[in-house]
């Protein structure tokens, strides 16, 4: 068990190293020297940066310097906002994205399980058709359209009622979080609903549910004891990718709702070609996702007795 987790964490670090390497070489390939771009930069900053990244050294040395800094957890200094450490930026903006993300994952997972179970119970009846229609919409409409539309409807709702039901943009209170989190979780919720529905249907026609019926177990007990737990398992397995989708989906939602999260900061950094921030954030997000997947796997080991967490 512990051994298994250690092994996975070790593998995780190797994966992060791979991500970092890929990031380094992708960015190293950027046409032109990032420092000689026509960017206003004081001589001292330039000298500092050159010394720090060994920019006059060969690529291999630069790579080693990059890895050494990375091992120390040092992502360097922003190119655009001079004297601001990438670490500071992450520390300041990531918690916002994390709160938004956690809220969305909770929305998506509970909604997905709930609606999925409902559609399966009411298979081929009105609630099923209704929910599945919405699910298809949720899967087919791009997130930025959903974000824009929800913002638009908040605007009209607030004007219609004459007071602020939910704030249209910004960050700070729980009220600010609800709408963006819902929008961010929506497509994942739709996807999980679909998954939960087919998983429920499969479980419903399974041999062991037939056995439970043959034992005279009442329907509600069959639902809670036999169907639900087994049907949720596939949903748990895709939580890793779901978290990844929600994390990157956050870029758009943070942009549209003017939320000061890391996603929006990343997009801005990309538009300003702030290389250190781009590299640092990419490696950070990569590491975050790798370890989330490991976490989900470990959790799955607890939920599904068939999976043994032995190394």
């Amino acid at each position: 068990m512990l051994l298994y987790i250690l092994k996975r964490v070790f593998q995780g670090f190797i994966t992060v190293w791979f991500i970092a390497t890929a990031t380094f070489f992708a960015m190293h390939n950027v046409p032109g020297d990032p420092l000689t771009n026509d960017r206003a930069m004081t001589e001292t900053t330039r000298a500092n940066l050159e010394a720090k990244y060994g920019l006059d050294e060969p690529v291999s040395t630069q790579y080693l310097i990059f890895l050494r800094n990375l091992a120390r957890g040092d992502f360097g200094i922003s190119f655009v906002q001079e004297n601001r450490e990438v670490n500071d930026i992450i520390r300041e903006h990531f918690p916002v994205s994390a709160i938004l993300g956690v809220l969305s994952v909770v929305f998506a997972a509970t909604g997905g399980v709930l609606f999925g179970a409902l559609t399966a119970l009411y298979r081929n009846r009105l609630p099923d058709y209704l929910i599945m229609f919405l699910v298809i919409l949720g899967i087919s409409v791009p997130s930025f359209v959903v974000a824009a539309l929800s913002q638009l409807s908040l605007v009209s709702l607030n004007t219609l009622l004459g007071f602020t039901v939910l704030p249209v943009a910004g960050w700070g209170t729980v009220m600010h979080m609800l709408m963006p989190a819902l929008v961010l979780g929506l497509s994942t919720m739709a996807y999980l609903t679909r998954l939960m529905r087919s998983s429920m249907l499969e479980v419903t026609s399974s041999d062991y549910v037939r056995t439970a019926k043959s034992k005279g177990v009442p329907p509600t007990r069959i639902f809670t004891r036999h169907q639900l737990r087994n049907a949720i398992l596939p949903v748990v397995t895709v939580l890793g990718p779901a978290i990844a989708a929600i994390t990157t989906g956050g870029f758009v939602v943070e942009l549209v709702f003017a939320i000061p999260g890391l996603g929006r900061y990343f997009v801005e950094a990309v538009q300003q070609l702030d290389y250190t921030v781009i590299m640092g954030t990419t490696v950070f997000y990569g590491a975050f996702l790798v370890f989330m997947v490991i976490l989900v796997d470990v959790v799955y080991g607890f939920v599904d007795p068939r999976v043994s967490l032995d190394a």
Partner: protein
Amino acid sequence: MNEISASSFEPLSGQQQSQVIARPSLSYWQDAWNRLQTNKRALVSLYIVIGLLLFTLVGPLIWPVDPAMQDIDQISQPPGADRTAIIVPDYEPWFGTPGRPDSGLQLAEKATSQAVRLQWEILDGASGHRVYRNLFPIGPELSYGIPIAEFLNNDTLYFEDRLDLQPGRFYYVVVALDGRGLITDRYQSIPVDIERVTTLVEASERGLIENADSMEIGDEVALALHPLGTDYLGRDLLARLMAGARVSLFIGIGAPFLFVLFGVVYGSFAGFMGGRVDQFMMRFADFVVALPFLLFMILFKIAFGIGPGESGVFPMMVAMVVLLWPATARLVRGQILQIREQGFISAAQLLGASTPYLIMRHMIPNTLGVVLVTVTFAIPSAIFTEAFLSFIGMGVAPPTPSWGSMSNEGIKTMLTTPHELFFPALFISATVLAFNLLGDGLRDALDARMRSAE
């Protein structure tokens, strides 16, 4: 049992006996096609997909409008908008009409798209005025709109607005400035309905009238037709949607096709080699899977860089292929391993078939069904990816249209001219929906276990 006759108990001849219903035996693909046809949703989706392809390929022949051409008479016009213009005399400069207006702020003459001419009386205690133009009436929070002119003394009490005026209703506001040039809460506001006009010279320049002599001042001319309206630069939305479809579908179908192809080659090679090679190859695939996809799409886009005049379509395709092949590779490898365990491959091997021959002849056809389904599901996500990247400004570079970049532009004017967002978003959604449902249908049809019909 009165019908029993003596002959009833005669033995049956062989022929009479064979009343077994012989069902025609169908090939895998025929069978799948038959099953797909019974799936109404999948069939409709297939028609939508075919319709989209026709729209992209044949559309520009039927509607040969240049998607880059700007119609400055019609900017951000919704479909079905009035597209007439009245011919007026050529523009002449205006410096206020002599004589003060009877009261407050008023129009000096009829407002047209050529010019809106305002005059006003000095507002209470004002030492100057600022003029605003707004799309909405002034609400309780006193948002005046866009400032368009400022006069720091009371000498000038008129203003002429000639800044890309579009037909429709605007609200003009004149706000009093105090001695230091700061705005006060004293203002005057009037709604202005602007009529579209043109001059004879303009109209003939733009080819709206054939013979300038036959037209007179006050005549109506019809402007160019834009069935789905125009965008914020006056470009024809239908033509842009067609051009955008070419880009979006090229990426959306081309990229999945390429990365699935690469995945198939990679996966079948690994699956066929087995052993160490297989292990190594799949471990590498695991690493590539771990790269956060959208972040690396962005990274690669930056790394490739886009030169002037390039659309950025090619780097996007390359990035997708580099990042997305592993899923297919895994799937195909799994299939190959499964098939390898079944007997017929070793039978063929015994007969001395070469490895490439085996892959070509036996394994690939057997995995084709799974691969087809994978491609179908990969298309909507590729289209989404293009839209997402274009939305955050990392996708197809302007002026090349794609549905994603059109949505990105449309979202900025969502409140005033929603059609600029609506149409590209509709096309993205319909395409994604169609391919998803088609994928569902294909999977069910090709799945030998015949999933339960949902």
